[in-house]
């Protein structure tokens, strides 16, 4: 997919290994444009399904609900992809939380969150791509999934730490901090992390890291 305003597609900038085709700011524009388009596409997709549920008489909660008003990394995920999060919470978070590290509350929360947002998330996407496993074989498919595994590991850790250090929802923060500063930090984190939300299993983890460095005009290759 390419964008107007001469912004290259994310695939194009990601495959620009030497960084000679696009300047660093084009990499940023492509990354941000890709992130916004995916956010919008995802919202529309979820709203369509929820609209059908509601027309059928079910008072289903929204899948995506004001993600740009997020108060933390954990809150963004809750607002962005509610039903997937609930699926992971039911199948991975609670079973882990109820059984392990009961005497260490912080480790208990961190481990259970990691089990859901990290392990569960990766497992779901790996098993979703059964065609890849059938084509490549289990171990090669697993190896080609390493970038998404890294993504899941970072995401799970970040959400876990976010929950661990999240203060109670207070109203004493200034409007600017609550509505601008915090959402920019959080959305910025997800935007940069989306580099590793692997849509092309042909690239290596090093390729993705190189792209991240190129955002800051650092060229290792």
């Amino acid at each position, binding site marked *: 997919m390419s964008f107007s305003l001469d912004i290259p597609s994310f695939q194009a900038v990601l495959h620009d290994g030497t960084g000679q085709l696009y300047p660093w700011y084009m990499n940023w524009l492509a990354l941000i444009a890709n992130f916004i388009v995916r956010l919008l596409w995802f919202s529309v997709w979820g709203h369509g399904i929820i609209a059908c549920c509601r027309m059928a008489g079910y008072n289903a*909660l929204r899948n995506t609900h004001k993600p740009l008003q997020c108060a933390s990394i*954990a809150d963004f995920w*809750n607002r962005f992809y509610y039903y997937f*999060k*609930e699926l992971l*919470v*039911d199948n991975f*978070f*609670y*079973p882990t*939380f*109820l*059984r392990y590290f*009961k005497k260490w*509350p912080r480790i208990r*929360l961190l481990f259970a969150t990691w089990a859901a947002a990290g392990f569960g998330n990766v497992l779901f996407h790996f098993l979703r791509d059964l065609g890849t496993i059938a084509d490549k074989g289990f171990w090669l498919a697993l190896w080609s999934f390493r970038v998404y595994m890294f993504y899941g590991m970072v995401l799970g850790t970040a959400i876990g730490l976010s*929950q661990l250090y999240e203060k*109670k*929802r207070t*109203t004493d923060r200034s409007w600017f901090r609550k509505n601008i500063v915090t959402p920019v930090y959080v959305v910025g984190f997800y935007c940069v992390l989306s580099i590793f939300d692997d849509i092309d299993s042909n690239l290596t983890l090093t390729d993705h890291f190189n792209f991240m460095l190129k955002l800051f005009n650092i060229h290792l290759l």
Partner: protein
Amino acid sequence: MDNKSKLKTFLQELLADYGAGPDFGDDDPLVTSGLLDSQAVFRMVVFVEEEFGLDLAERGFDQNDFDSLTNMTRLVSS
């Protein structure tokens, strides 16, 4: 303070953290209505474990047990 009163006080504090008012009915759905989310449920789980000594890993976990004050009171009393 009886179990129901303890739970109600805790839920009122939880609702306040989520920007909701303290008034709710015993049977009002708190989670499935969207008023509270799964992060709130995990705080409820910790509360009933610590306050009432329940081991939900042994009893089996059902998020519906945390959907209303009535359901939570039934859970801790059973």
